[in-house]
């Protein structure tokens, strides 16, 4: 289909698959592809872990404590609705064009999303199981591991899935605006040169990588945490 499309459109709009493949090959041979992929991946990983950790902590605190909830809720709504671009540009202006600002901008974009999901999860915790744990005097560690975490599991998984896709999209924008390496930076250059072949040569391996992480890491984890649920037919 792609081949057919590129035949109809001009090469400048949609290059043939082979042309893209050869650019991918060239970039891979020079090592630039891997350096940029690694840089982007490192940023995705760092900001993802930070956003999940901080967002989970905030969400659980807000779900358990009404005054924290009232205090942080307006801030959360502002962050949820603030365009990613505004956060990124402000972060670069206030903290300078550096790595910390880049990561912080991504984290700030993802954090409210995680916090809201985990707040719902915390509110939905089963009171009766909590009482059971209290009567049987479960130590805190065992309670967190066996009673609380399994209940938050689906919420964590949902936050992770939506989080990963959100984070890698925003990381590219952050790189485009203020970093000198990474897939986003390369796509920015390709945009300036109107070089669709080069753009696709960076975008495709990255999308492939994210798909692989999704299906080989995120989905198995999700299946593992929900294996106790009886399957309904199907």
């Amino acid at each position, binding site marked *: 289909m792609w081949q057919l499309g590129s035949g109809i459109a001009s090469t400048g709009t949609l290059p043939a698959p082979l042309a893209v493949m050869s650019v991918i090959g060239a970039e891979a041979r020079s090592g630039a592809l891997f350096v940029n992929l690694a840089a982007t991946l490192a940023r995705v990983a760092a900001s993802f872990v930070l956003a999940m950790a901080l967002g989970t902590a905030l969400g659980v605190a807000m779900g358990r404590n009404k005054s924290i909830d009232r205090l942080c809720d307006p801030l959360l709504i502002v962050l949820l609705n603030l365009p990613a671009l505004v956060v990124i540009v402000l972060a670069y202006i206030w903290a300078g064009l550096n790595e910390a600002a880049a990561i912080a901008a991504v984290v700030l974009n993802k954090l409210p999303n995680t916090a809201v999901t985990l707040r719902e999860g915390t509110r939905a915790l089963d009171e*009766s*199981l909590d*009482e*059971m744990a*209290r*009567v*049987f*005097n*479960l130590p805190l560690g*065992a309670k967190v591991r*066996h*009673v609380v975490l*399994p209940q938050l*599991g689906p919420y964590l998984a949902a936050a992770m899935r939506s989080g990963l896709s959100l984070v890698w999209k925003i990381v590219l924008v952050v790189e485009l605006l203020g970093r000198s390496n990474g897939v986003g930076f390369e796509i920015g250059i390709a945009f300036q040169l109107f070089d669709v072949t080069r753009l696709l040569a960076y975008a495709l391996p990255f999308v492939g990588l994210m798909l692989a992480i999704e299906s080989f890491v995120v989905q198995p984890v999700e299946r593992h945490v929900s294996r*106790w*649920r*009886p399957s309904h037919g199907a």
Partner: protein
Amino acid sequence: MELEVSIERKALRTASGQTRVVLHDVAFSLRKGEICALLGPSGCGKTCLLRIISGLDSDFEGRIVLPSPHRIGMVFQEPRLLPWRSVVQNLRLVGSSSENDLVEIAAALRLSDHLDHFPGELSLGLARRVAIARAFAVKPDLLLLDEPFVSLDAALAARLREELLALVLKRKATTLIVTHDVEEAISLAGQIVVLSAAPGRLLADRTIETPREALTEGGAVKIKNDIVSLIAKAAHC
């Protein structure tokens, strides 16, 4: 283990802002190793009393005396198992019991074939048995059971009662079992505490002197009639 219950007043605040007295002047004590049945009509505060004794509810006037340290095993009205842990993991989790003890407890309640199942795969009767096994797995000094056999068919309930009785006698746990079934109370307990309809007051604290094995059918019927008439009389005044 001895248990001393002395509650002057327990009130609940309803959503509309009114206070409703649930328990009023309830005092009794349990001897070590004794099985006591807590009897009373629905809604008289039996479950509430159990929550107070177990320490889940501390908002009341009065006091509960328990020797410390103590371990409580509790069977709630619903099984309250962890659905994401298998039967044996549920037992192990609370457990001060060794693997051997767990296997023995599970065998006594005929759960041996179900140890690797998840609670969602069990029938209600089986899940209740797991909840009973869990209460025993903590090696309780005090065993609290909240209508553990409600909504089970009569034959199964009778069998579970026997299994429970055997376990209690073997493990020598002081036991308080909540029920609204007079016959169940007589067949299990050496002491019967009767509460009135809401707000729950103490109607009777009766010790059955005859040992359980020596209790004749006629004797049991007499005790039953006594208690039933006591409850009926309380309902009329």
